[in-house]
């Protein structure tokens, strides 16, 4: 499972950082920073899906 994050679409709602700090950090301005290099570890698949399902700006995508 691969995760893609768009800094262009991100408006700093911080939902992903709150739900999955293992996958997302935030920078000093409150925008998300993806912590993994594309591939999501198996134990974090569920959390990655939560990040997708709760991003108001549709800035996060998962692909197989």
């Amino acid at each position, binding site marked *: 499972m691969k995760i893609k994050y768009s800094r262009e679409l991100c*408006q700093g709602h*911080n939902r992903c*950082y709150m739900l999955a700090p293992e996958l997302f950090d935030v920078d*000093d*301005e*409150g925008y998300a920073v993806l912590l993994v290099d594309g591939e999501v570890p198996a134990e974090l698949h569920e959390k990655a899906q939560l990040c997708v*399902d*709760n*991003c*108001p700006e549709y800035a996060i995508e998962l692909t197989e």
Partner: protein
Amino acid sequence: MEDLVKEPVADWATDFDHSHPDYGANAPAIWDELRTTCPVAHSERFGGMWLPTRHDDIAAIAANDDGNYTSQRVVVSAVEDESMPAPIGGAPPITSDPPFHADARRLLLAPFAPKVINEITPFARQFCNDLLDDALAKAQANDGVFDAAVDYAQSIPVRVIAKMLGLPPEDGDIFRRFIHQIVENPVDHDVADEDSIEVYLDAQIDKHKADPKPEGDLIDHLLRVELYGEKLSDEHVRGTVILLLIAGIDTTWSAIGSSLWHLAQNPDDLKRYRDEPEIRPFAQEEFLRFYAPVTMARLVAQDHELRGCPMKQGDWVLLPFPAANRDPEAFDDADTFIIDRQKNRHGAFGLGIHRCLGSNLARMELAVALDVFVERIDEFELVDPEAVRFSTGQIRGPRELPIRVTR
């Protein structure tokens, strides 16, 4: 305070009025009806305004990809605005348009980033406990009754933003008077100059200028930062302080109050919120979705059509994010409150470039206010559902919420 008696609304599709008491009490039913019968409602009130109710339309207007709208005014008002012109507007950055908007906003992002806000949590927690000490003492002498909106919810954001801005905490009543003037009572009214928010804040900002502190509060920060190589103008500083003071108070007060209103009427949800801490982050987001307090406004910047409706330059357009949050096209079981809802892309803090700057602060205050409340109070109920009074205007939430502590 004296408000004008509003003309009754003849038909919500052609004569809606968000400042009418009937709207405050019944808004979700009105949105649901309009969404299926007339998704972009119109009214001649306030010189002409539109009310879209579908998530897609609201999100598209917020995104404003074609420049059809301006944020120069975000609160519908019959009072003329004599402040800074576009793209700055009277309260930057909320009243600003691109490209100026992003530059003015960037100055404020760091002080509201989540890790900075987290550091205020212990202060908020202590203050919530202090408020409940007083409220519960009052309840003990009054058959278990206190007002969860007046004695608890309303004071929390006032106290926190006063600390962040460096304003006297005892001036809370003055801040609430400004909110009434600016947000809750958007009809023509006279405010004596000496009672205006401008005069009050100029005096407070002058005090900060006379005693600058390098690691100081938000007013010190605004007086120190530079935009395009220059200090901010006095008008810009004052406009931004007006924004920071007004925007966080009755919005957060409404979110906390609506959540407590829900818990008072839904003992099963109260029990789950208390007994299952792992669902709390989802519950807080569901409170925000279901009871989103904030409707923003825009002005039409250029003539265009929206779903066949003729939008004319200068018309008001309301952005009812709470209506977007109830759109069945965007949410499963949109009109059902699901305390552990897992899929929730709600827009309670707005969508697009104007996402609420204080969203991390508001979330922290909501979480702390609810957590402390359920730690201290096991069970509670409404004294009388009819005694709950909702606000009118663009910020929706209970302003009077008498509850009885039963355990």
